[in-house]
């Protein structure tokens, strides 16, 4: 019943929206009738009267909003979460429970420096806080600080489950060690944790496994692992985007499109970009509308000037607009902020498409120093 309702609403929305192609342009309200659906509202809405007085209550409310934001892919929920923490938002000596949630919000919004500072403050007070420790490791790893990340993982106490410890190390190994290291560790930990306490951690482990398979070019195994990850945790938007990239790279654009069923205005920027790319690749009739929508989003993000959006900019320029030079500049800007596998591949492909030997050479040097190898890049090098 729910799915049917959803589809009806999407159809109604699509109807209203297809009335215009250009974005930010008025629609003809004379074409509407009383029952035309203009917007969908979430199940839970915040209100100004919902004031919390204690740090504990504020942290709890913010945590609920973060969970809502993740489950519904609704970025506004993170704004409501931040609002709940407003009295302590800029205080260096915020209560511990507030600081934990604040650090996660900083992390979600890519304010890496603030997130790192919060986790380090938390760990100074409570060195055994495994949660803060693993968050910090993930943060350091995403920025390419592999040694620091490894040190953080090593601080995890044996009380933490094997799977969590393995995931912590494997996210680093999948970037720096030979692919088999992460493959074997993850396979062992996953089979030992068969009944699995936490689906999100298992999903994370499976998507890391998929990335390890991709590195050696075992695409069939990678695909099976991505499917496992999404079966375990359908809310893992990150794994979904990685899987879409996997499918698009294999020329399976329609399969990639099928991964995203919501109306496009409810997708994250990264997800929307994959939809745009896949729609263009499979020559969908609405491809141009989607391109305009994505361009509008990137413009709004650039104007806000907050979260780093260079990764999305580079992706859009490279795969949608076919402007390799613009893409390379953006990818290099992004490189100074984050260095996950997606970022390495993006920079490599942009350098290659732009025919920039210097950029390519610099990246090769970095790869040699960290120990990163990838089948897609070996092929790219062969064709270069």
């Amino acid at each position, binding site marked *: 019943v729910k799915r049917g309702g959803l589809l009806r609403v999407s159809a109604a929305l699509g109807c209203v929206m297809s009335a215009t192609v250009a974005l930010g342009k008025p629609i003809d309200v004379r074409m509407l009738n009383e029952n035309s659906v203009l917007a969908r*509202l*979430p199940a839970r809405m915040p209100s100004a009267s919902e004031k919390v007085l204690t740090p504990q209550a504020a942290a709890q409310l913010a945590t609920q909003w973060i969970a809502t934001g993740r489950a519904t892919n609704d970025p506004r929920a993170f704004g409501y979460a931040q609002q709940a923490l407003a009295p302590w938002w800029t205080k260096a000596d915020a209560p511990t429970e507030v600081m934990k949630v604040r650090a996660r919000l900083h992390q979600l919004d890519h304010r890496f420096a603030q997130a790192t500072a919060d986790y380090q403050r938390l760990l100074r007070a409570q060195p055994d806080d495994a949660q803060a420790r693993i968050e910090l490791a993930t943060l350091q790893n995403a920025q390419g600080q592999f040694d620091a990340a490894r040190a953080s993982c090593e601080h995890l106490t044996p009380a933490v489950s094997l799977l*969590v410890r393995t995931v912590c190390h494997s996210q680093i190994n999948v970037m720096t060690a030979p692919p088999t290291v992460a493959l074997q560790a993850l396979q062992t930990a996953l089979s030992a944790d068969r009944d699995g306490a936490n689906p999100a951690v298992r999903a994370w482990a499976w998507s890391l496994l998929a990335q390890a398979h991709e590195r050696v070019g075992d695409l069939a195994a990678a695909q099976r692992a991505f499917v496992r990850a999404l079966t375990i945790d359908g809310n893992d938007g990150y794994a979904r985007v990685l899987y879409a990239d996997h499918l698009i790279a294999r020329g399976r654009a329609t399969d990639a499109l099928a991964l995203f069923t919501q109306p496009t205005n409810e997708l994250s920027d990264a997800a929307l970009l994959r939809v745009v790319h896949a729609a263009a690749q499979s020559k969908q009739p609405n491809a141009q509308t989607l391109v305009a929508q994505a361009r509008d989003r990137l413009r709004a993000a650039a104007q*806000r000037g907050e979260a780093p959006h260079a990764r999305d900019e580079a992706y859009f320029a490279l795969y949608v607009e076919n402007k390799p030079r613009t893409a390379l500049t953006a990818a290099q800007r992004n490189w100074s902020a984050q260095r996950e596998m997606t970022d390495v591949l993006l920079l490599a492909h942009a350098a290659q498409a732009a025919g920039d030997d210097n950029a390519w050479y610099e990246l090769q040097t970095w790869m040699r120093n960290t120990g990163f190898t990838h089948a897609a890049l070996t092929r790219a090098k062969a064709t270069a």
Partner: protein
Amino acid sequence: MKRWLLLLLMVCVSRGALAHKASDSYLTLRADASAEKLVGHWDIAMRDLALIVPLDANDDRTVTWGELQPQLASIANATQKALHIRTNNEACTARLQFDTLVEHSDGLYVRQTLDTDCTLTPTTTLALQYRLLHDIDAQHRGLVRTALFGADRQWVATPGEMPLTLHGSTTSGGLSALGTYFVDGVKHIAAGLDHVLFVGLLVLGALRRTQHAAPNERSVTRELLFVISAFSVAHCITLSLTALGLVNVSSRIVEPLIALSVLLTAVDVLRPLLTSHRALIVGAFGLLHGFGFAGGLTPLAGTPSEIALSLLAFLLGIEAGQLLIAGAALLLLTPWLRRGGLSPRAIRFACVPVIVLAAVWVVERVAATSS
């Protein structure tokens, strides 16, 4: 065990860190056809409007055209309150009215036209304070575009933060505001005839007292510096205390006393009464005038450091105005000074009208307070 469970519950969050479309509104501001009034339009997401105006009458988590229409006036009302526009530091009225629906990259927005009575000139300082959703969504931003006097610019307005200066002689709103306080200070002393006459009398008195000795410009200047400084220090004290709200003396008491101070000073110039403790007496009068000056100060607002700076600018303006008046008086009297000083007739000629005028003020102001 409990801790371990907590860890597992939370550990997922670190990923999913994908950039996203947060809540934005789009505000466009421009000059109207006559290039004199500020107009524009404002697009606000339906989802955000639903947080401040009830849009889902039948509670089915969708907003239909039928549900939106009856609420358009409430939307205009509620959103109007979230825009504070000031030109040259004075609030102007903004009126919003539903125009149409607009599609942006994350859904449909309500577009309202904006009409204001803000008058624009190339030198106008235009400031915007933006407060939409300031108590609901900490990540909401107003993406503002201005097309004014040939310049197309973009701004990001954060709800509840310091106003944006969208147009003005200087890009720093703080500096131009300080300039305004300084000018207010100069204007205030120059526009009050009682203050002008008082300063004039201080100059005249200083001249008169020094001319028994060898009348020269240096001794006059020294005496003048002495009384003017005493007056300044004293009125700075009471002006600051009043402006900061630490002291509040009714103008019903202060105004007649200021008139009386002018009267007494004029008499003193004519027939010296106040021979001893001159600094104390001038200082006491200064305290009185300080209370009077505070009336010319626009209420101070902002952070403590901003208030202090504004007050300082106003004080500097008062001092500058006072020095201008003293300089003008000195310049006016220079011919007599050159001819060997002021004759008793000349002094009488200057003082008697002031005494009469001040006496009238005293009576008027006392009458005004008792009525």
